[in-house]
């Protein structure tokens, strides 16, 4: 019996082994990825970029699918649900490189909002960001350069280009458009109407979201917060002159040349005045450094020494649209609230998806009278970002701390009422107050006459128009028509670049005809840039080699000419010109990840070689295979 069994066993074992060796071959399948982007109505450039990039990737043997979404859905899936492979879109950016901190630091990887939507986690990189955050003066410059160079190495996202912003305005009813940046509050204040009865300022807005939601914290509804900027005041207004090197002609723009405390970066607003006093021991120095120039502190979670305090004096007697007085308490509340919208009644904090980086360096706030003292853990320029946050009325937002609940729906913890309320009608302290709106048609704002800019004493630009009527208008073409046919005074959002040429031509023609022409094209600088973002949480996008190769498949120069008709600046570093280190200055090609090919034509062989060198494999049909 045993003999039999053994014999049998031997024979079967052989065959089984054969079977196993067949079974074991787990095939690695073709890499197929989805490019999430906006529809042409949402953002014409994005979908075009996505199309072109998609085509190149297909050529490189990757299976591509393009997933078009509406503006809200797009931001929801990218910024909140982190549910994407690759996306192409526009980053609000900033004129100073400090935004990189919240955009790339690993401690924000799981938060929702513009803070680290890529889930990019690299501790070496963090140390750079922290240095940049804390260092001052020369060292800061150098730290920023290091950060940007590391960024160019790791390519957590691929910066593509900074588009030039053009807007069309009518000068016959209002003038002085160039005083402030039209993407900010200042652009719509201090306009001088030639005739006083022209009370209504009409803006043609190509984005319908302001008519649906005016919550300054709702990241999926805000781009750069123009409308909320008008409704809410901040402590100070950043000066664009510094970042202004971007768009040739508008360098001279110098908002209302007031210059009390010689602060070159911010001009006072709700905060009348502020002072920064440095702490003695700058502990950025006491960190030991080794050969590779990284501090070798093994615990990045260590609490940071405060570096200094920022003391802000608030304007007297300001009030909110509902008549409540605006005091230092509201400011303190706002800072506290943005850092944790549950206001500590929940076990764990639920920070606001917007203004995260602005309040992150604020360790503590103390107030006496209308004096506020912010204890900061960052260098002066970074700490001052806190001046940009919108001041929320404590008596309204204090109510919005509990976790939103909808019957029969499981709610992610930390989704507080504050983040999802549409905040209508919005109560701020801004120069304009909410009048009414109709979804996807218009939003009407009334001048807020109690606003401090209306006072004689204050020499800040004030709202000259009684009413600001924001007319939602689907497309640039029709928006332009509205302005031309004198139904609107300004296109409040930048024109899509495919119409810019026509507009410019038209203008030049008009100038030849008559110089008393009411229409005028305004170009303004911007820090906002188009980019391709990876979801670095998942393979293969977690692989820097892969990301680098992808970056090398993108011909930024070509895209700029094809998609933006040349009205953009290809970039290797997502910052304004004067912050870009020479090593990353644009030199006709990308200095760090040059395109694999020539003018838009991908060199497929080179691309494959690059992928294979990065450890990926091609199958015999030339499809890129990857093990997930």
């Amino acid at each position, binding site marked *: 019996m045993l003999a039999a069994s053994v014999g049998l066993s031997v024979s079967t074992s052989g065959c089984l082994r054969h079977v196993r060796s067949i079974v074991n071959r787990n095939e690695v399948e073709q890499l197929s990825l989805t490019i999430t982007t906006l529809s042409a109505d949402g953002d014409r450039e994005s979908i075009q970029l996505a199309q072109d990039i998609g085509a190149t990737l297909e050529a490189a043997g990757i299976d591509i699918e393009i997933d078009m979404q509406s503006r809200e859905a797009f931001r929801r899936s990218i910024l909140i649900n982190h549910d994407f492979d690759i996306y192409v879109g526009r980053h609000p950016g900033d004129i100073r490189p400090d935004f990189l901190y919240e955009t790339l630091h690993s401690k924000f990887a*799981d938060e929702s909002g513009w803070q680290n939507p890529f889930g990019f*986690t690299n501790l070496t990189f963090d140390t750079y960001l922290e240095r940049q955050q804390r260092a001052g003066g020369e060292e800061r410059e150098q730290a920023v350069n290091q950060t940007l160079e590391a960024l160019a190495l790791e390519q957590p996202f691929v910066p593509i280009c900074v588009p030039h912003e053009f807007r069309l305005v009518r000068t016959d009813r209002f003038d002085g458009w160039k005083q402030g940046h039209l993407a900010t509050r200042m652009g719509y204040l201090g306009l001088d109407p030639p005739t006083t009865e022209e009370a209504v300022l009409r803006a043609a807005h190509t984005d319908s979201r302001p008519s649906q939601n005016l919550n300054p914290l709702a990241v*999926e509804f805000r781009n750069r917060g123009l409308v909320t900027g008008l409704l809410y005041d901040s402590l100070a207004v950043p000066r664009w002159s510094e970042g202004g090197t971007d768009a040739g002609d508008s360098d001279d723009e110098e908002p209302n040349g007031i210059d009390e405390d010689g602060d070159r970066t911010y001009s006072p607003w709700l905060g009348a005045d502020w002072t920064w006093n440095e702490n003695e021991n700058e502990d950025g120095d006491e960190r*030991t450094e080794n050969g590779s120039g990284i501090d070798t502190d*093994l615990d990045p*979670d260590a609490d940071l020494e405060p570096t200094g305090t920022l003391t802000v004096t608030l304007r007297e007697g300001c009030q909110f649209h509902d008549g409540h007085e605006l005091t230092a308490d509201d400011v303190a509340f706002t800072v506290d609230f943005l850092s944790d919208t549950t206001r500590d009644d929940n076990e764990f904090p639920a920070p606001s998806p917007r203004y995260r980086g602005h309040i992150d360096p604020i360790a503590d706030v103390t107030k006496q009278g209308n004096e506020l003292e912010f204890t900061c853990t960052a260098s002066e320029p970074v700490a001052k970002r806190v001046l940009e946050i919108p001041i929320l009325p404590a008596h309204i937002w204090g109510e919005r701390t509990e976790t*939103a609940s909808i019957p029969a729906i499981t709610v992610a913890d930390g989704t507080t009422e504050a983040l999802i309320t549409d905040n209508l009608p919005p109560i701020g302290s801004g120069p304009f107050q909410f009048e009414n709106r109709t979804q996807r048609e218009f939003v009407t704002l009334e001048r807020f006459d109690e606003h401090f800019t209306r006072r004689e004493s204050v020499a800040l630009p004030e709202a000259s128009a009684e009413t600001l009527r924001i007319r939602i208008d689907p497309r640039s073409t029709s928006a332009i028509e509205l302005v031309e046919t004198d139904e609107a005074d300004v296109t409040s959002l930048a024109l899509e670049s495919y119409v810019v040429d026509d507009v410019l031509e038209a203008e030049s023609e008009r100038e030849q005809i008559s110089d008393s022409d009411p229409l005028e094209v305004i170009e303004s600088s911007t820090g906002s840039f188009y980019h391709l973002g990876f979801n670095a*949480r*998942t393979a293969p996008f977690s692989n*820097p080699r892969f990301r680098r190769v992808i970056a090398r498949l993108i011909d930024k120069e070509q895209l700029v000419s094809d998609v933006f008709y040349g009205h953009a600046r290809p970039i290797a570093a997502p910052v304004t010109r004067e912050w870009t280190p020479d090593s990353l200055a644009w030199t006709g090609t990308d200095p760090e990840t040059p395109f694999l090919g020539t003018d838009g034509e991908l060199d497929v062989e080179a691309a494959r070689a690059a992928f294979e060198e990065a450890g990926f494999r091609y199958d015999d049909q030339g499809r890129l295979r990857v093990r997930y």
Partner: protein
Amino acid sequence: MNSPPDESDESAEGISRRAMLAAGATGLSVGASGCINRVQSVVDPDSSTGMAVSILTLPGADGDREGAQIARHLEENLRSVGVNATINTRSRSELLKTVLLEQDFDIYVGRHPADFNPDFLYEALHSTYAYESGWQNPFKFMDPSFDGEVRFMDPSFDGALERQRTVEGAEREEAIAELLWRFALNQPFIPVCIPNEYRLVQTDRFSGWEDGHLATRLGYLGLEPAANVEQLHALITDARPTRNLNPLSATARERGTITDLLYDSLATYEETDDDSESNLRPWLAADWDWDGSTATIELREDCTFHNGDPLTAQDVKFTYRFLADTTLGRAPEASPAPRYRGQVAAIDSITVEDDYRLTISASTSPEVGERAFTVPILPRRIWSERVDRRVTGNDEFSPPQGTWSLVTANNIPPVGSGPFQFADRSEGEFLLLERFEDHFSVGTDDVPEPTVPELRLEVDPGTASSIDRIASGGADMTTARLETYALGGISDDDPVERVEDTSWTFYHIGFNTLKEPFSNPRFRRAVARLVDKGWITETIFNGHARPVAAPVAEKWTPDSDSEIDSLVWEDKDPVTPFLGTDGELDVKDARDLFAEDYEYDDSGNLLR
């Protein structure tokens, strides 16, 4: 939810098409859409699911008791911070198959064969190996270096790995210190402890056990048998050697002790009292000398394989070429062997001078390059035939690297040139080796030789039973390391002895860093702080182990006088100290730590 004022002025505004509709209707629609927006922004598909982690480990009682207990420890602590962790047991080969070849796992607890030279971290963590299956980078850890391509300084993990390969002496120690610092920062895997290697031997049949490391070939050679002892009877607790003897198999080999006996390598590891100079002594190579980064090697003359073929420089050359690409260039892309990856990678080119002389030029410092001398030398004729048999004419042939039949085949009978040759086996029961009379060591006195005609390796269910058996004279020695729980069962009166060897294999907790959330080093660090290495060594290993923060020998661990923070263990982990005291987790602190990066739902589960 939405503001009443809309409707009133709605009718006032004449321009709307909807002006003709009842104002109420508009209000309704606005309200409805508002509500839906609200729902949309509230519902968050991803984070509404709790984080679930499956911990892969060996069966506790019959596989690896310490490993399983570590897994339990980790599981309990993960549960208490709100991660839904479960334990998933696999047999030895299954575990390795899942981790090394199939690579679908979250976390695994196991022992790393490691190496006496910290250079093993190179193949264990270098990003170029992330997409290969085998012992090379099973964690898929990637922090690549772009030093070749970029114009500015590039600090990265790969950079550090490569640096320590090229520099020498004090400089290398520095490089390794930096490497280990990065390691501690990133925790691609959590090194737990280095257990002491105890083996039990019978002293009245054999003596001279202390001469060689019993995990290497030298341990089995040069023993002095008592009179008329014809057989060395060793016990193995792991049945794999009776099923598979393929030196390349990633799932059947770990330390490769038996491969050592069946195959020769150019050099062999030898325990030296002072760690300063190399631990390698010439074996198949009579001698070598380094000139810069090229070594000239003298082979011992007229050695033969077990089948009688002569062993020449050609075979050596072939071996390295074959290990670098097991398809010998037949496939479009190279298919490197799932073992010895780092060793072979150190070798740039080999030129055969004559039958017994060859020069090897290494891409690394000699110190690292010599590691390559420890790979088994394979008979060219046999293995190239095997390749030919598998790669038949068809031009487009790409084997699944690391899993194709050539490297998974059982290779029985194995034909090597080692001091012992295969005689017989029965699956799951025993493996019988007999002395290879033509081996160069036989009859010489400068190298230890196989002193008994037969070596019988018998599968024994577990440490406890093996101890009984040896104590009762049923066998001569245990090849496997004794599990610490059974050490108490050793009585002093029996003619047995507990031999201790230097140990470098370490228990570790490996992450699949391709997966969320393990791709996040901050998460990995947080997990590392849930493991009380000190407690583990005290209770699980009864103190017979050394807790480590850096997975290398003491001499390599950077201490206080190195320029980076010390990684030496002083009664707590210098980098990721345990959140709690002797095994008891401080749940509050731990949860706070995780809450820094991740969200909790209201029932206290960690969300991803």
